[in-house]
């Protein structure tokens, strides 16, 4: 049953994305300054929002784990962190493609790019740390503490990097102008299927994490005999 629901949601997300892409490519006009490439932002921006949401959920799940010691929260934390990292990667990569077309360079140490990269590396560290701990309960506690530290660092990273960049010349992103309302609406419209996809992937990953814990317990039981 659960699997069917997830599959259904997946199909729904795919259908929505397809519909959105049709609108993005066929209906919306080229942007005056940037031409066709601006369309990448309909994936770029919602991906960033999703990644940020993932960090928030990971924080809440980690805190809840430390309070309740219920490993379901740990599974939730690792699931959203991992899927959030994937969305973060989408954000970084689409951003780089956009930068290559508009600025002619793949990478620049712009404030937003740098902050995103630092945060991405932080949470990649979370996965690395989990990988190094064998015992599930110890792993959950260690990872939860790390997740809280990482989240506390995000605002400081964003703030300090913005400050750092204002002292150096930098290319301007989005020109600071107002966006056409149809484009603006499209950002949110396309966020919906991405969120749906995020939820499905996170649910699958959570299930996998729980199955893995069961296997680990069975293995321990076998050793104990």
């Amino acid at each position, binding site marked *: 049953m659960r699997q069917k629901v997830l599959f259904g949601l997946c199909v729904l997300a795919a259908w929505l994305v397809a519909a959105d892409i049709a609108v993005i490519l066929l209906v919306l006009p080229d942007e005056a300054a940037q031409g066709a490439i601006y369309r990448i932002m309909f994936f770029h921006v919602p991906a960033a929002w999703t990644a940020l949401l993932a960090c928030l959920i990971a924080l809440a799940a980690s805190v809840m784990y430390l309070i309740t010691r219920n490993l379901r929260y740990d599974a939730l934390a690792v699931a959203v962190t991992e899927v959030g990292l994937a969305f973060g990667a989408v954000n970084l990569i689409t951003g780089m493609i956009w930068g290559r077309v508009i600025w002619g360079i793949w990478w620049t140490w712009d404030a937003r790019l740098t902050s995103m990269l630092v945060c991405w590396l932080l949470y990649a560290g979370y996965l690395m740390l989990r990988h190094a701990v064998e015992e599930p309960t*110890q792993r959950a506690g260690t990872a939860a503490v790390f997740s809280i530290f990482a989240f506390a*660092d995000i605002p400081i990273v964003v703030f*300090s990097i913005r400050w750092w960049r204002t002292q150096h010349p930098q290319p301007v992103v989005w020109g600071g102008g107002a966006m056409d309302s149809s484009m603006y609406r499209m950002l949110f419209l396309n966020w919906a299927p991405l969120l749906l996809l995020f939820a499905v992937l996170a649910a699958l990953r959570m299930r996998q994490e729980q199955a893995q814990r069961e296997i680990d317990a069975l293995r321990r039981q076998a050793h104990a005999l």
Partner: protein
Amino acid sequence: MNFLRQAWLIACKDLRAELRTKEAINASLSFALVILLLFSFAFDPNSEQTREISGGLLWIVFAFAGALILNRSFARELANDCLDALVASPVSSAALFLGKCVANVTLLLAVELVCLPVFGVFYNVRWTGRFWPLLLVLALGTWGLTVVGTMFSALTVNLRLRELMLPTLVYPLMIPGLMAAIQLTTALIAGQPLAGGLYGWLKLLAGFDIIFTALALGLVDTVLVG
């Protein structure tokens, strides 16, 4: 009061143990000097450019040297299961953590104070112009590095690949603190007064220290008692 006394006992114990074996401090100091030497091949050591990147250069050295000291901090309790004896004693986890931080800061600051004159001589940089503000920045930056590093030393103490995990986890987390320390150090070595924008960086660095000290003191018990 009792809390501070316990922390002090732990700090004295760690410092005395380190002064006897000199394991971490020797490794850290020689590593720092080697990196300082290596940098001279990375760019022209005589150019004016050196002064412009002096803060970044120094803090990279300090961060690398610090990782060696911090790695040892909880690892030294592993032999003979000493960590269990400390956790089972009436010393609170927070006092244990604070004591270790104080010891690590002292060691790392000592390494830094040796590195600074060596850096000045090697790269022909006069760094003493704003000595006291510079010392304040060193202390604050080192405290931040130490608090985060000591916490992760506790977090990774039982892991395989401990030595590799610590720097990979700590450096990204340290970026805001390091960035502030780098900006301040460069400016102070260039002879700028501690005012205006620099004052903002100093506040950021202090804020970073406060936030992570509070978080670490609050969470260290869950890390040490499984």
